[in-house]
């Protein structure tokens, strides 16, 4: 299988027209590549365009110009229905405000994207129950969102994002509404999701404390990706090399990934072993279960 980036952004720009002669340029021609299994963080001051960028990667809004290519497919070529399909099964979204459906119980919430996909209820519920265990809320099957704490709701939202076994998890400030203890739980969960498989996780956070756990930091400012940092703490030197090599090869797209990617991913698994202490015991526990599930990736 030819190895291509999971997500490739090419000259992405977004301009919001506020009135006739007043517009906001939220993104200035941003380009980057994200590889399978990476844990990426967009980091930057408020208003620098992080959410705008993420929403375009998620197919929630089209760019003004430029392209988003996901596994070789240009999102702009997808029909409305295909775009919904993309959001449903290739992407798992986690939001700052949890965004659970209040009229549905916990299991129905988790299973909802699968219901949109026309899956049978029995199958959905089985998978939802399993994911409830993964996020360590196995005892909350019958609860409704209103009866859960913020941290618990966010874990439910993460379980929901996983239901269709997506390639990519995207989380826009998932800890923004949480106290520090719940925030840590949620972050541990997301990090473990990234570590235990090649599932790609793209994260937006304002909390610099979490940066130490991510593989690469995309530092943003005024609608541009200023700098891409490879995290020395999580990544080995070889990984740093690999990534910088990749960056150099960016212009030469055809060759780029074929040989480099295996090094990259094998490094990830090495890091994974080393980073065990990042994950708490329960994250480790859920890892095994999750792996059984990850037949596609």
């Amino acid at each position: 299988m030819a190895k291509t980036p999971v997500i490739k952004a090419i000259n992405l720009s977004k301009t919001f027209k506020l009135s006739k002669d007043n517009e906001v340029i939220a993104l200035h021609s941003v380009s980057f590549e994200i590889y399978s299994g990476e844990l990426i963080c967009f980091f930057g001051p408020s208003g620098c365009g992080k959410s705008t960028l993420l929403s375009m990667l998620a197919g929630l809004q089209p760019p003004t110009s430029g392209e988003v290519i996901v596994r070789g497919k240009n999102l702009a070529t997808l029909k409305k229905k295909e775009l919904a399909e993309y959001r449903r099964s290739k992407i798992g979204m986690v939001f700052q405000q949890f965004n659970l459906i209040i009229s549905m119980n916990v299991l129905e919430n988790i299973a909802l994207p699968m219901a949109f996909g026309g899956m049978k209820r029995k199958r959905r519920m089985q998978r939802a129950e399993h994911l409830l265990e993964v996020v360590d809320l196995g005892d909350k099957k019958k609860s409704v969102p209103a009866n859960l704490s913020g941290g618990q709701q966010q874990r439910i939202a993460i379980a929901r994002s996983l239901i269709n076994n997506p390639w990519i998890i995207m989380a826009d400030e998932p800890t923004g509404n949480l106290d520090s203890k719940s925030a840590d739980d949620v972050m541990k969960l997301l990090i473990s999701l990234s570590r235990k498989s090649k599932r790609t996780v793209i994260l937006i956070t304002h909390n610099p404390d979490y940066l130490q756990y991510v593989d690469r930091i995309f530092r943003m400012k005024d609608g541009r990706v200023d700098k891409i940092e490879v995290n020395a703490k999580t990544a080995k030197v070889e990984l740093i090399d690999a990534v910088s090599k990749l960056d150099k090869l960016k212009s030469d797209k055809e060759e780029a990934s074929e040989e480099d990617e295996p090094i990259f991913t094998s490094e990830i698994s090495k890091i994974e072993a080393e980073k065990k202490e990042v994950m708490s015991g329960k994250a480790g526990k859920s890892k095994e279960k999750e792996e059984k599930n990850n037949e596609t990736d």
Partner: protein
Amino acid sequence: MKLIDIFRIAAGNLKRNRLRTVLTVSGVVVGVGAIVFLVSLGFGLQKLALDKIVRLEALKVITVTSGSKTESQLNAGIAEEFEKISGVSAVSPITRNIVSFKIGNTETEQVVYGVKPEFLDMENLKISTGQAFSSKDAKNEMIISKEILTNFGLNQDSILGKDIDYTYAISGGENKGTLKVVGLFDEKGVYAPFDAISGNNESYASVKVKVADKVNVPEVKKTIESMGYNTSVIQDQSAAVNQVFSIINIVLGGFGMIAFFVAAIGIFNTMTISLLERTHEIGVMKAIGGNSKDIAMIFITESALIGFLGGIFGLSVGWLLGGLLNLLVNFMATESGGEAVSLFAIPLVFGILTIFFSFLVSTVAGIWPARRAAKLNPLEALRYE
């Protein structure tokens, strides 16, 4: 998305806003109930009228009255000619005379119809006390309206079997005799056998022509008309009754429709408010992979459900209300010695149609909110409230 899941979500949303759902459904119940109540009253009255009119025997009878031309008089000769028309089984002339009756010192004048006894049933008389003429050759019997009992100064029990003297004027003299009262009925008038009361009459008030087979009625009718006489048959009347009632039903249904129209606006209103409230939620649903069609279907299903529930309950309420009123009316009717009648009737098809109609209109009322919901931007999911 599977239909059953759309249904589940829609039902869940209706349950979430229980009070609003109940109120909106109530609006539909009132609308549908009003339609059902009013139209079933129309149907009931129609049925009542038709039952009164339509008797199987009566349908074979043509009533002939004299035409405008002076030569088209009804008399014995003409009656014989009617009898010769093919398809005619019997002919009965009816005379009308003012007859004075005398019982003791009491004297009273009444209109008396002379009929052949076997034709009495054509007159649609229901004997309520006593009996009809004892045989078709009966001569000195009569049946009278209850209304005129007081004129005779007698009550129901004492008049039955009583012989009453009568006299009436004929050209160049008068006829006399006695008639025994054998039966009483509710309608107006006095009936006596044709032979007893009309022996010398030259012209008849009308002639009843009985046709052997109902299908021949129009043909016979035409023949008689071509002879210069006016005819009427009961079928004509029932068609007219049906026509009148179809108008009455439309008018009554129209009143109900106004209430239903208001209810439909209520549904539209509820769905629109619901849409505004759920903007964020719908955005989330789209962001996590719901497609526009599913979102629209959820909305449509919600308003269709409101209409369906309203239709069922409205039908029940309208039907129950009609039933209760019927009981009340019948109670009062039988108390005052009348006949129990059924004022309300709901044909099954009409009931089913009403529910379907309510379902349909509600669905239509949900289309616009549903389309707006489907068009909502998934970016709403990121918006912070």
